[in-house]
């Protein structure tokens, strides 16, 4: 078994070389690791490597191919890259949505104010929507200048984390 994984920008090839019970020999790029790895709970792994004891949490995020992995003090975003991912990526890069400026809320909350409407021209840095969560209001700004193409939320809506709030299309200069 061999997989390509992306970790915060780095692409690594991980290959299983040998497996006997918990004992696992794995190549990560050119380095060979012999680890004692065992699952101790939902998404919780205990790993012994060179005597040291590591507790690693592997949490599926948006879909089965995206993980948030916590080691000691670090959190890594890891993505599995397979044929499907590559296909999706190539589509994204060449597709119609290229260059869009999509504004999402990183956390769940409530839309308290939408400051633009579809068709408005906005500048980079302009606040377009305000979300309230846990008694605190956060302003979300346009990343690039453009025209508001879509506003899939309205004031008063309760939204999930990562939900799209405003889509801004760049103005193609003639």
């Amino acid at each position, binding site marked *: *078994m061999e*997989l390509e*994984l992306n*970790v915060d920008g*780095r692409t*690594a090839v*991980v290959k*299983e070389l040998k497996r006997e019970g918990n004992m*696992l020999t*794995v190549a*990560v790029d050119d*380095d060979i*690791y012999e*680890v004692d*790895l065992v*699952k101790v*709970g*939902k*998404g*919780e*792994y205990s*790993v012994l*490597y060179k005597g*040291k004891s*590591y507790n*690693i*949490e*592997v*949490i599926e995020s948006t879909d*089965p*191919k995206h*993980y948030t*992995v*916590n*080691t*000691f*003090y*670090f959190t*890594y975003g*890891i993505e*599995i890259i397979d044929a499907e991912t590559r296909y999706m990526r190539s589509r994204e890069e060449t597709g119609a949505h290229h260059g869009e400026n999509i504004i999402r809320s*990183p*956390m*769940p*909350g*409530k839309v308290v104010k939408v400051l633009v409407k579809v068709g408005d021209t906005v500048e980079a840095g302009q606040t377009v929507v305000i979300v*309230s*969560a*846990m*008694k*605190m209001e*956060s302003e979300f700004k346009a990343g690039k200048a453009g025209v508001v193409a879509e506003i899939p939320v309205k004031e008063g809506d*309760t939204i999930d*984390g990562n939900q799209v709030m405003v889509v801004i299309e760049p103005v193609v200069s003639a």
Partner: protein
Amino acid sequence: MDHRKINKVLIANRGEIAVRIIRSCREMGIRTVAVFSDADRTAMHVRYAGEAWHIGASPSSESYLNIDKIIEAAKKSRADAIHPGYGFLSENAAFSRRCREEGIIFIGPSPEAIEGMGDKITARRTMIAAGVPVVPGTTEKVTDETEATRVIMEIGLPVMIKASAGGGGKGMRLVKEESKIVSSLRGAQSEAKTAFGDDSVYIEKYIESPHHIEFQILADRYGNTVHLFERECSVQRRHQKVVEETPSPSMVPDVRARMGEYAVAAAKAAKYEGAGTIEFIMDDDLNFYFLEMNTRLQVEHPITERVVGVDLVKEQIRIAEGNPLPFSQQDLRQTGHAIECRIYAEDTDNNFMPNPGTITHITEPLGLGVRCDGYVYTGYTIPIYYDPMISKLIVWAQTREEAIERMRRALYEYKITGVKTSIKFLERIMDAPDFRSGKYNTHFIENNMKFLLAETECDLYCEDLALIAAFVDYTGKLEKVKLTMDNSTVRHGSDWKQFGRRHAAYRL
């Protein structure tokens, strides 16, 4: 002034403080009633209380701040007392008065005491009359701009302009230059008007390196008032306390004794009954001034409980029943050192943005000297409507140094996944030289922000081991899917056999 035994308490609150109050009630054999909003049906206080009544929609204004609904629930459940916790209605004089009118014991001060301390100008006057030192400044509402400029120049710059009805940093302006006086005054007044519906402001001298020191007090209805020593609350971010400790590392015995006496005098001047807190501001030369009184239990009360050995919620209940205090000032002493860290659901790396969501997994720290007061559990979804504080971690040790090491150990053990929390940030505070030396004031967090947000070094293999774990998890899932696919092509007679097999395949 008759004595009335409390048999059933309604807790007009949610979160960790509701759970904490129910614990003490349970130990006293008092039955408990939780109230909950739409968003809180699955909350821990609902599960832990003996009874639970729904009081309205998710926004606090329609539930935890709705006096009528809460009184109705108290009557339906035949509760003879209400504990307001902190926040929400805890410092609402109208609520205290309504309880009195309905014949329900309010576990807190009288409406008069709340009103007297709630208006900051009145509180200042009361304290001056009682001989308690206050920050140099005005004792009257300031409106006239020329007069204000004269007064400010008399006090001497820098000064703070503060809203009389204030709290939480709103309606506050720091003025350092004469040219900014008028604009700051207008700004404070307009903000105060918006936030509290009252544009009264007053002026105080600004203390340069302020320490926030507060004294816990307890007072019964027979005039007995004691203090339970100080809490150091100078580790703050945007006027929100983050870490508290007791004793204060900057305190010396004679200053403590004097502040304690003033704290008792302040409570007596306010005709206070119950548990309260006298907040002082202290400069580097240990000059101190009354700042305000909190007429409720504080978030940080557990560090006092640990060092003094008193259960403050039980004392609140006993006082509300009409019992005299069971101890006098000379019975009380501080033993060892306690620190509290507040755990928030927030993304400290992303401007401390709140981070509600579902708790995938939680492991609480345990063992010698550790107390963890929380309310979230594995599988629980933290609602978006309320405070982002999810728990408080309190440690005790014989010395401050040992307490810091114990806090580091406890924070290391504390694992919460699913939402981002401030745990890593708190670990950095425990490592910060200014904190360890005990030489810090309310500027600590802004002065140390770079250190506090720096990444900890990881050992050489962390990243590769993370990759290996993700690899193993993903290939494990792939195999399970294949297994399920294979099974589902061959159909068996019994659905249950099928179910059992799949079920097994999805177990960890």
